[in-house]
Structure formats: C-alpha cells, structure tokens
C-alpha cells in the first residue's frame, strides 16, 4: 500500500434507524483533502452503480471520512446489508464538487431535513470555527428518526429540532423552525439548507421575501461526478450547470427546483424494478 492507495475499509458503523446508517471509511488522503460541502462517488461492488454521497464528516487524524446513508433503493438497501465493519467498498472517489463557500457571514441558520442533517454538519462546524453565530434547524419525520442532535448541540449556538408529527421538539417542518429563528433574529446573513428538493424549495420560499441569501446543495442523479456525462445538469437562473463540478452548492433563489424534481424521477421504473428484484432474491436466499 502507498500513500495514494486506500482499500476503503469500513472501520465503524452506526445505525440511526431502520433506514439510516452511518459508515466511517478509511481513506487517509481524502480525510486530509475533504472540505465541507463535498461529496464522494461510491461503488459498492464491481457490478454496482456509482452513487453520490455527501461527506458528512472527516477526520484527518483518524484518516477516515464519514457517510450517512438512507436506504431508499437497490444500492443503498444492499449496502445496509453488506457494509459491515471490516468489509471494503469496491470504489470510493472524491472529494468531489466545489467546497462550500464560507463567506464572512456573522449569523447563519443551518437547516438539515431528514438525511440532509448529515451533510449540513461539516458546514455548520466550519462556520462555527470561523467565528459565526450558528443556529441549527433540524427536521425529522418523527422522534425515532432523530440522529446527531447532540453532535449539533456541541457546535451550534442555538438548536431547533422539529418533527413533522410533533413527537419531539417543535411540531412542524423545518420552515417553521426557520420562521421561529427569524422572529428572534433580524440580522441573519445567510441560510444553508440541505435536504430533499421539496424541503429546500420551501426553505428558499421562506427566505426569499426577506432577501436572505440561501445556499442549497443539489442532489441530481449522477454517473461519473467529474463533469463528463451531463446527467447531473440543473437549471440555475437561466444557465444550465453541472452539479458535480459547478456545484453541488448553488444560490437557492436561482435554482429551478421543479426541473430538478422532474429529472430525479427519470429512472423511477428501472429503480423500482431493481429494488423489487433485489428484495425478492434476498428473501429467496434467506429461506
């Protein structure tokens, strides 16, 4: 083994819920290079898909990066079964994308919805380290799905946890959390929002009138992650950008979310077929 090479060993795993799990993967060079806002492309086995995942944390001293994954389809469901401590990913490339621009905002709201909680963490931490006042707003469907709230409490000046069903924290969506923060603070410079497209769209709508700069991290379907295929193209203003090399962070008030949501449905049928097939073969091997 040499300094460039890593065998992508999974050194730790934690399950946050039935569908959400965390992997800590060894890649010393990437752990040193990674910056908030960047992502990786993972291939779990030789016939696997290349899937983009945000670098949710990185630790240069331990030589690891952390991924938080929601099992939603064939690849991620399978990873939930196969990615055990001591096993290896087949491929892990990155860090990809332009790191988040940490300007000189003094007071920032960092919003994470569902799985977006993980990718917004390194940004919130970096903002805190740069001296900003950080308000965290985390949204989950229900109490059981909550994760990393402690981790956030350590780096946020204020933390608002929301649940859709009111089983914990504020009863409501992250947009309610944003509004609550805006009521108290009239000097917010910036909002960073990461989560499902629908949520990011709603956050942008919530800040548009007040004219607060709102950065979002887009998650279109990707293949290479290096600007080569154009599959990840998104409309920002009137311009078409490739999220993997021109993003993934963009000015949310410029993003055409409707276009993004339509394009995310592109492979719906094939994804459903693959997931079905996979769960059927799984059941067969289990009996």
């Amino acid at each position, binding site marked *: 083994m040499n300094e*460039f090479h890593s065998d992508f060993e999974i050194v730790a795993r934690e399950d946050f819920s039935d569908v959400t799990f965390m992997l800590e993967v060894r890649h010393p060079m990437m752990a040193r290079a990674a910056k908030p806002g960047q992502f990786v492309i993972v291939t779990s086995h030789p016939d696997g*898909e290349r899937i983009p995942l945000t670098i949710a944390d990185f630790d240069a001293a331990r030589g690891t990066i952390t991924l938080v994954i929601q099992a939603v389809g064939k690849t991620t469901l399978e990873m939930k079964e196969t990615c055990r401590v001591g096993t290896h990913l087949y491929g892990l*490339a*990155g860090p990809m994308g332009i790191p988040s621009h940490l300007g000189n905002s003094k007071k920032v709201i960092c919003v994470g919805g569902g799985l977006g909680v993980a990718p917004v963490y390194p940004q919130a931490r970096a903002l805190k380290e740069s001296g900003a006042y950080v308000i965290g707003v985390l949204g989950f469907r229900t109490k059981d799905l909550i994760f990393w709230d402690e981790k956030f409490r350590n780096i946020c000046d204020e933390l608002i946890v929301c649940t859709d069903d009111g089983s914990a924290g504020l009863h409501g969506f992250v947009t309610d959390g944003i509004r609550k923060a805006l009521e108290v603070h009239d000097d917010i410079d910036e909002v960073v929002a990461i989560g499902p497209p629908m949520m990011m769209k709603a956050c942008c709508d919530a800040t548009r009138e007040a004219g607060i700069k709102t950065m979002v991290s887009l998650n279109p379907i990707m293949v290479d992650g290096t600007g*080569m*295929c154009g599959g990840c193209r998104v409309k920002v203003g009137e311009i078409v950008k*490739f999220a993997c090399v021109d993003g993934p962070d963009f000015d949310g008030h410029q993003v055409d979310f409707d276009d993004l949501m339509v394009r995310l*449905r*592109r492979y719906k049928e*094939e994804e459903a077929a693959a997931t079905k097939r996979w769960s059927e073969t799984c059941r067969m091997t289990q009996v």
Partner: protein
Amino acid sequence: MKKRTVRSIPQQRTPVRELDPVVRSRNFEEVNCGYDEQEALLESQRCLFCPEPKCIAGCPVNINIPAFIEKIGAKDYRGAYDVITGTNLLPAVCGRVCPQENQCEGVCVVGETLEPVAIGRLERFVGDLAIANGWVNRPYIEPTDFKVGVVGSGPAGMACAADMAKAGCEVTVFEAFHEAGGVLRYGIPDFRLPNSVVDAEIDKLRELGVKFEVNTLVGRLFTIEQMLDELGFSAVFIGTGAGYPALLGIPGDSLNGVLSANELLTRCNLMKARDFPNVDTPLPLGKHVVVVGAGNTAMDALRVTKRLGAESVACVYRRSKTECPARAEEVHHAEQEGIEFHWLTNPVEVIDDGSGSVAAIRCIRMELGEPDDSGRRRPVPVPGSEFEIETDQVVFAIGTNANPIIGQTSKLKLNKWGYLETDANLMTSIAGVFAGGDIVTGAATVIEAMGAGRRAARSMKRYLGLREAIEEPSSETIFGIDAREHNFVRVKAA
C-alpha cells in the same frame, strides 16, 4: 524484387470479413473481423513502396508504413510490430479506430487510381498478433530516481506513461474512474474496440512497471502543485481529455429522455448497463431514438441504441454526409445496420409529452450556403421547412468542452476556451508539468492523443536530463544473442 506498379499489384483491395448486419445489430460483438494471415499477405502485395511515401506524411505520428508492410510481406511480423511501435504505442487500437481515410489511406498513391492500400487493417493485424503472442518492446530499463505522475489514463496518458517507464522512471497513472483506459474504455463500444484489446494494452504498461491508481480525482484529492511540492513527483503529465458535453441549447433540452451520448455510452460500456438488471446501473431505452450529431460519438450512440433494442434509430445532422466528421467505416456500418439518416437537418425544439418526458423533436431543413471559416459550406435553415420526428429519447453528441476540474484547482494557465495552454514542448505554465491530448487540443483523435503523450514524454526526458532509450530493430544480435528472442533492446549511451 521486381518493382511494383499500380498495374502489377492486386487491383482489388482485400475485403475484410464482417458480421452480418442483421445479426450484429442485436449484439455487441466486434463487427470487423480483421484480416487473417493470408488476407494480410495478399493486401501487403498492394503497396508500391514509394520512394517518397505520402502515407508516412499523412500519418499523425509518421509510422514508417511501407517498412512495416514490407515486413508483413516477408512474414516478419515481429519486425513489422517493431517498426510500428517505433512511433505508435497502440497499433491494435489505432488500426481499429483511426480515421485512416483522412490520414495515411487518404493520401496513399495507390488510391489515386485504385482503392488505397488497407493500411489500417494491416496495422490491426500486426497489433492483434502482438497481443496474441504477448510481444512487448521492452528495452533494458536502467532505473532512475525520478517519480513521474500521469493524470488520466486515456491514450495520451498511456503513451506518456509507457515512454517514461522505459526511460527508467517510476510511473504512476491516476484515473478518476474505477477503471483505466479513458475514452477507449467508457466511450468506444465493444463492437468497435473490444475491452480485451484495451485490457491487453494496459497490461503491457503494467509489465513495464507502470502503476495505476484508479478512483483518484486529481485536483480534488490532491492538486497538481501538491504532486510536485509534497508528493515527490519530479514531473507530471496531464491527459484528462475533453469530457464536459456541450448541450443542445434549445427549448426542451432538459426533459427526461434527453441525455448526452457520453452518459449513454458510459452507462452502457463502463457501467455495463446493457446487462441491467444483472448489474445495478439502469439505462432506460426509448423505442424511437434520435441522435443529434454525426461524429464518431454520435455513430457509437446510434449503434449502441440499436443494439439495445430500439425499434427505430435516426441521426439528425445539420450538414450533409460529405461533411460528416465520423470515420467513413462507421457511417457505412451504421447505414447497413438500418439507421436512418436525416442529413441537412437541425433540431430546434424538444417537445414535452406533458409529463416532463420527450414526445418529439422539431427540426428544420438546412441547405448549404457560402463556405465558413473552416472552409466547409455553412448550413442555413430553409424557411418554413420545419417538421417533427416522433421520439421518446433524444441523445446529443454535438461536441465537448474542456473539463473544468484541473483549471479550478490549480494555477495552470488556460486558453480562452478553458483548455490547458502549452508551449511547443507541451510544457504548461508550471515548470515540470506537461499536458497533451484532448485537454490541450479539444476533442481530437486517439492517434493524436497518443502522439502528444509521446511528444510530452520526450520533452519530459529532456527536462529531467534523461537520455533517450533507443530501441534498436530487434532482428539484430547483441553479443551473439538474438535480441528478438530475448525480447530486449540495448540502450545506447547518449
């Protein structure tokens, strides 16, 4: 040997066996079966051994063509291989994918009266024999202390890596994808260039001691500057290709069902999506596919969709067949396979089916007007000639732009189109960093990228103060030993 004349040589170009168009348009087997020995010997009889061979000048890397054809005629195939690899590292690849009709064969003297000598097929014959027999031109390598980094594993990177390894450097090739080969791997499909050929070429590099690090996105994992300053590389070569597909820029071009040829080909070739659902990457296919563009990439996209089972596949191109930039053989094969061509047709809008997917493409007829800067007649729209083609998938293959990653992450000087700027020695604005291939010239050809990799290696050796490894013709004996048999070549002291 009696002097050959155009009248004394076999008049017909030796035909090459090809798979039946109907059968092959449903599979990914190689279309062109290549010459066998008898066919190659026969075709070699057609070269006139011109005293001033035009073909050599027509070849981007000036292969000594009559010399290798003469060796074939004498059944000295190993000798022929040595002649070719004197300048071309990848004969099995280039024999298959070079646009010979615009290069060596386009200027071959025989071609003035008859069909030109089938130089490409002969080159491939030799390249395939070399793979089958495991020939490598492996000079005696005297190790140096130099570490060389090569970024990108396409033909440019492969060529530079080979030459620097032969000069005794410790060479590491970094590739962003999880497999090496560049366009040869992810772009050009198996029915034109089987993966086994690319594998064989990469194995040869491994035998020379070249190391490959895949899954490595240079610029982001570490920068070019870090390679020199922190990671101990004495020199770096950048061959990252053109990538970044150009968009149609017409209404409806972001609808679902509109995708770049690069995405289609990458899914099919590199990610093996044609075996979905046995592999995980999907490649949803339309029933009626339209491909915009008529270069090699477009031809590959057309023929891949046909093979994946589309009912109809049509090509839309704004100029006429004469101006079409693809290799003649590919256009011919595509026509045989039942692909429709709409020449002099330009798309103006992709039409929504009401749910965000493609229903049709509206096009306008073109006619050729005055010549433009490139000397080609400029296509101009015919007013009122708009019409629609029903389609559920539109693939665009209208060229590429420079990949921005290296530019974003280094101080290297770029030209106004975003390509790397180099001097006559292919050195970039940073001393010790060289570049070549599509990332310097914009999308070009395999042979030009390969040639640039070798030219950069020559400059790199001068920069490092290394002498040239001289590869003597291997039929020579050294100390009474047949060099060929022992598969080594002397290094001449400078």
